């Protein structure tokens, strides 16, 4: 074996879990963590699943660990918020078989709602954190994480960031090592976290963290690269690569474990260099702890807490200029948009026409916030759209929400939206909730969920019927509408927002990018009939462009023939033809 291949950071993490003998993995998709589970599912030896949310995923991993197997849970940074309830107490129980939680941070917000730093949560939960800086380390650190987990009886977090997760570099493959399951023994003081047990476990947690901190100075992945001593850097993860790129001759303390910190190693390193920089993306987690040791450093006064770092950022701080030769040319922005043939566009075009505000959620449909559709007014977190609508009604009365709805995707609804809906039923809401059911988890690249009828491994399974689910929790009025049937949708939305009955409208149509979708037709615009009114352009479909003479042209390679533009043309200028 020992073949060397290039792998995505996430693919390497999956490989590491496979090689480490992981038996059970559970996750909810979230950029930039999704590809870990997708790649892990390819190995028959590992049971891999999509859970409805990250809390469930972590609890599955905890159960597998206590039963004695090596287990894994994967999520994005905000997913850890959902999973933080089991997380904090998992630190107390410790593990049976080794357990690792991969958490992917998103500095620069490539696809997220905030830039929170997982290391802060890990510190408060007293869980060790490893942070790799390329795919090779990603694989190796996963394996090391299981050793640490079992040696110190603790869950371990492997923290990645977008650049690491979505970069490819060389990885040398090793064989899987089958690890013998730990033998389960009933242990109430370890696994039943009631006060009398937990009080003792808290002391165990403190002791463990002290031991880890001591041992961290001798840990090989906390590495000193001694060179010129005028400048020294303490850094970790992808930021290490930028330091090496810009200052190959500087001394570096590269931290592979970023919680707890190796205090002795840091003190020794600091003594040897004249100026010490802490180069870490997001929060000053390392910096504040190093300052607390009484060491003088340069950190966030030089480097921002916001966004991704780069070599040029470091060059600008150190040398006052970056490597650019040419001036940037001012260019119109190209923000992400809903795809041609996207069913969300159809629903939003109706809401836009009716001047209805939407309490939104997390998914592709968040893009309904921007022009020209501009119907989403709020987005906070998964599931929040429904509960926030309820809060508005309770604050301002039922008439206030007569021009509001909540919109949420099918996968997000099953994630945490269903809890919010139960609250609406229980506390007598009169609101309207639209479930945008496109039969997939769209934004993250089409993952199965509990209502698609397929598992992550591609096996057939029970598909939850969303309308039955909504009725069973007590929603009095549940309506299923074809998302592209604009006339029915308009009538349905109008009626339900004006009524005092809690209504769920399930707007169904598959995601245009879903595998196996066929698009036999395209829309064409007859420029003779086109009156240049621009109505069709208001739906914001990228396949449509306004030509120099004001008429509309439809790009045949982009158009998926959904016919939404046709529904809005009053002059019959647009028609559907066979491809």
């Amino acid at each position, binding site marked *: 074996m020992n073949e060397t291949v290039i792998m995505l950071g996430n693919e390497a993490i999956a490989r590491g879990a496979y090689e480490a003998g992981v038996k059970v993995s559970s996750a909810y998709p979230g950029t930039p963590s999704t590809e870990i589970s997708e790649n892990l599912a390819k190995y028959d030896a590992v049971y891999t699943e999509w859970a409805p949310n990250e809390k469930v995923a972590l609890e599955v991993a905890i159960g597998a660990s206590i039963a004695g197997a090596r287990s894994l849970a994967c999520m994005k940074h905000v997913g850890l918020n959902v999973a933080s309830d089991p997380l904090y107490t998992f630190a107390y129980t410790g593990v049976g078989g080794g357990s690792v939680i991969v958490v992917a941070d998103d500095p620069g917000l490539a696809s997220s709602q905030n830039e929170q730093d997982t290391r802060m949560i890990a510190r408060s939960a007293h869980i060790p954190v490893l942070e790799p800086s390329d795919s090779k380390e990603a694989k190796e650190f996963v394996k090391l994480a299981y050793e640490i987990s079992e040696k110190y009886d603790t869950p371990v977090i492997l923290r990645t960031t977008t650049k690491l997760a979505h970069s490819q570099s060389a990885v040398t493959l090793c064989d899987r090592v089958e690890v013998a399951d730990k033998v389960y023994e009933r242990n109430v003081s370890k696994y039943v976290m009631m006060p009398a047990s937990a009080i003792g476990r808290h002391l165990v947690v403190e002791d463990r963290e002290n031991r880890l901190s001591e041992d961290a100075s001798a840990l090989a992945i906390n590495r000193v690269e001694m060179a010129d001593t005028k400048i020294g850097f303490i850094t970790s993860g992808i930021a290490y690569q930028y330091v090496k790129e810009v200052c190959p001759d500087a001394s570096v303390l590269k931290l592979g474990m970023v919680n707890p910190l190796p205090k002795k190693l840091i003190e020794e390193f600091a003594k040897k260099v004249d100026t010490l920089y802490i180069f870490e993306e997001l929060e000053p987690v390392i910096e504040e702890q190093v300052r607390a040791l009484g060491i003088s450093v340069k950190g966030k006064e030089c480097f921002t807490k916001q966004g991704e770092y780069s070599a040029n950022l470091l060059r600008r701080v150190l040398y006052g200029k970056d490597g650019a030769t040419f001036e940037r*040319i001012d260019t119109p922005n190209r*923000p992400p948009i809903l795809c041609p043939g996207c069913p969300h566009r159809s629903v939003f075009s109706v809401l836009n026409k009716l001047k209805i505000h939407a309490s939104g959620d997390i998914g592709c449909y968040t893009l309904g916030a921007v022009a020209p559709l501009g119907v989403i007014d709020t987005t906070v977190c998964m599931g929040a759209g429904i509960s926030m609508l309820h809060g508005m009604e309770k604050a301002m009365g039922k008439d206030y929400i007569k021009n509001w709805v909540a919109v949420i995707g099918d996968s997000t609804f099953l994630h945490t939206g269903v809890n919010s809906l139960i609250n609406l039923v229980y506390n007598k809401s009169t609101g309207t909730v639209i479930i945008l059911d496109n039969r997939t988890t769209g934004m993250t690249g089409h993952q199965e969920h509990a209502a698609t009828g397929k598992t992550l491994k591609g096996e057939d399974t029970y598909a939850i019927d969303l309308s039955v689910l909504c009725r069973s929790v007590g929603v009095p009025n549940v309506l299923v509408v074809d998302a592209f049937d604009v006339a029915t949708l308009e009538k349905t939305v109008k009626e339900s927002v004006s009524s005092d009955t809690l209504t769920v409208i399930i707007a169904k149509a598959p995601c245009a990018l879903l595998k196996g979708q066929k698009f036999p037709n395209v829309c064409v615009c007859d420029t003779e009939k086109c009156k240049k009114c621009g109505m069709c352009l208001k739906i914001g479909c990228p396949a449509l462009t*306004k030509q120099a003479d004001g008429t509309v042209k439809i790009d045949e390679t982009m158009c998926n023939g959904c016919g939404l533009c046709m529904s809005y043309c009053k002059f019959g200028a647009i028609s559907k033809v066979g491809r």
Partner: protein
Amino acid sequence: MIKNIMIVGVGGQGTLLTSRIIGKTALAAGLEVKISEVHGMAQRGGSVVTFVRYGERVYEPVVEEGEADVIIAFERLEAQRYAHFLKKDGVLIVNDCRIDPMTVVIGAKQYPEGIIETLKKKHSVYVIDGMQIAKDLGNSKVLNSVVLGYAAKHIGFDKESWLETVKATVPPKTVDLNLKAFLEGYEGV
């Protein structure tokens, strides 16, 4: 020596496959390779950029302003957006295609006229109508292979190595068509 390649375009144009073929070709030549990709929300019709870096020892996975040896742009506006990433003597390959961003569709912004001419004043620019060639070959989906073939001459490596990696990377059913498309870009233009 590190070589820095950027592939820029509009989400959905399939730039990921192009960067992977370049990366695999460099890996086959025994070099260290790093590739950086964009996933998630940005892919939905937004401006998308991927990076390939290779050489003896490569640290960061991204190409930064002033470092690009070759930029392959699948759309004109995206060529303009990233042109300042070029090195002084860097090469810009442009697929002659226009996709209006939503800001232009709704009339908030104008699509700039004469992008190619403007870029030619400062940079070495090579233009190819990849879509026309792909359509002539009978499938618009091989656009990427046509453009990559055209760019390959400016990147380096021998023709056989390229053909090997194209063969190993594209979906099995499409190998012949993609090889033909690559060669059309490599030799035909």
